[in-house]
């Protein structure tokens, strides 16, 4: 690690001011310290936010839930309210990392975790995300884990997390404090960015902004599934993941909200897919149409070509399970 100055933030405003001046916020540290050891991240100052009062899970007046930025991933997944009302969130968290890591990792830190692109992780390789303008090693390199949707000619990295994919399907929001003391709420669906010409920016956080919490809307009911496909059955990042919240009514899909992980630079959402499914009778023809729509613009880069059929199959499997239909069922 490069030398750095260690500061402990006494309040959110101080954390924001230090971050605005160039300090890097650290909470669980499970991703940031890893990257600092590799000198992918070389902050001159670390601002420890662990003593800020952001560790509570609180009910909201509308029946929703507010999860503090510093709530550990373990505590969030174990919370009885989360397990009962938003099981998709608990499932997605439990699908990621290990118990040791989830005991340290936080809600805000998980949202802000960086890509696991091999070229981003290796300072000897070109990477427009780590060193803007240096090129992209993954485009013509080893790109098995890379994006098939929403990529640019500058960057084909993926957002690696599971939690945010569930939060996107559940239409959660990120509550953010600005350095001037004002607050804004950003839908998780709009929190992470596509790479475009500025892949160095993972999300819409502005300098000095501090995440305070994630808010969940009231429970939507229905069936909630998180299906993660990976190279081994535990402790691996997703190759494809599907988060689904589906409610059936009278043999039809009354409501469908889907999000996809490991396909793009952000948790991927396609409102057209949700619209196609909503109100329709479930069956393989409908599911195939949904997959066609989702993957319309999908582009493989060689090693990751398999992600296109894998996404299709995973989506169909999740929709069958969520709607209680069998292979071959037609509406």
């Amino acid at each position: 690690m490069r030398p750095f100055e260690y500061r402990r933030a006494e309040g959110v405003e101080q954390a924001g001011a230090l971050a605005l001046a160039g300090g890097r916020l650290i909470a669980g540290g499970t991703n940031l310290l890893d990257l600092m050891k590799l000198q992918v991240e070389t902050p001159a100052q670390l601002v420890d936010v662990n003593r800020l009062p952001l560790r509570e899970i609180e009910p909201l007046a509308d029946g929703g839930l507010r999860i503090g930025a510093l709530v550990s991933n373990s505590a969030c997944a174990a919370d009885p309210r989360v397990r009962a009302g938003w099981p998709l969130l608990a499932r997605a968290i439990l699908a990621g990392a290990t118990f040791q890591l989830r005991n340290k990792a936080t809600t805000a830190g998980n949202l802000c975790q960086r890509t696991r692109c091999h070229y981003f992780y290796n300072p000897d390789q070109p990477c427009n995300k780590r060193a803007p303008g240096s090129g992209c090693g993954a485009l013509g390199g080893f790109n098995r884990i890379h994006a098939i949707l929403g990529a640019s000619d500058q960057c084909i990295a993926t957002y690696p997390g599971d939690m945010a994919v569930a939060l996107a399907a559940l239409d959660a929001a990120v509550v953010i404090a600005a350095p001037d003391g004002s607050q804004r709420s950003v839908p998780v669906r709009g929190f992470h960015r596509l790479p475009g010409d500025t892949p160095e920016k993972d999300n819409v956080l502005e300098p000095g902004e501090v995440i305070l919490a994630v808010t969940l809307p009231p429970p939507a009911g229905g069936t909630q599934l998180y299906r993660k496909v990976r190279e081994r059955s535990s402790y691996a990042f997703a190759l494809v993941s599907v988060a689904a919240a589906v409610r059936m009514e009278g043999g039809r899909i009354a409501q469908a909200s889907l999000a996809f992980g490991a396909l793009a630079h952000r948790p991927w959402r396609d409102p057209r897919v949700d619209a196609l499914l909503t109100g329709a009778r479930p069956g393989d023809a409908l599911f195939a149409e949904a997959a066609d729509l989702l993957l319309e613009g999908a582009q493989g880069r060689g090693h990751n070509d398999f992600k296109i059929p894998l996404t299709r199959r995973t989506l169909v499997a999740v929709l069958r399970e969520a709607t209680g239909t069998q292979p071959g069922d037609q509406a």
Partner: protein
Amino acid sequence: MELTINGERRAFNGDPRRTLLDFLRLDCGLTGTKKGCDHGQCGACTVLVNGQRINSCLSLTLMHEGDTITTIEGVGTPDAPDPLQTAFVRHDGYQCGYCTPGQICSAKGMLAEIAAGWASAVTRDLEGEVVLTREELAERMSGNLCRCGAYSNIVDAILEVAGEARP
């Protein structure tokens, strides 16, 4: 700043880069905790912080002011071993032994998580009681690698202790 390690107060005023793992091994002489990958992938550095298992390689010492740390040296001694340590010996839950301190600290943390009713990725019912099957144990211990491949004996040792702990 101060923290408590295996019941003893320790002071730290060193380089901010000092990870908890390096502090334990290099400054406190507690070399039972092992450095494997140093990137949170192998679990050899697992210790208990305020009763919860974490990777000590991915945590800065400075972030642990006031915390209570338990390392393998605090779990048990040759004269007064923890039931997990006894079970690892009985079941030959190791070959080279390098991952063992992390395995045992991790298993201690895991048993506390199960007692608290925490589900895992393979738990069928998120709101039901957790039953420690071999499948559950494999998922819950996936953060601890054993390059010798002593997994089946490690599982036997932990299951024996988990079974005895049941009412």
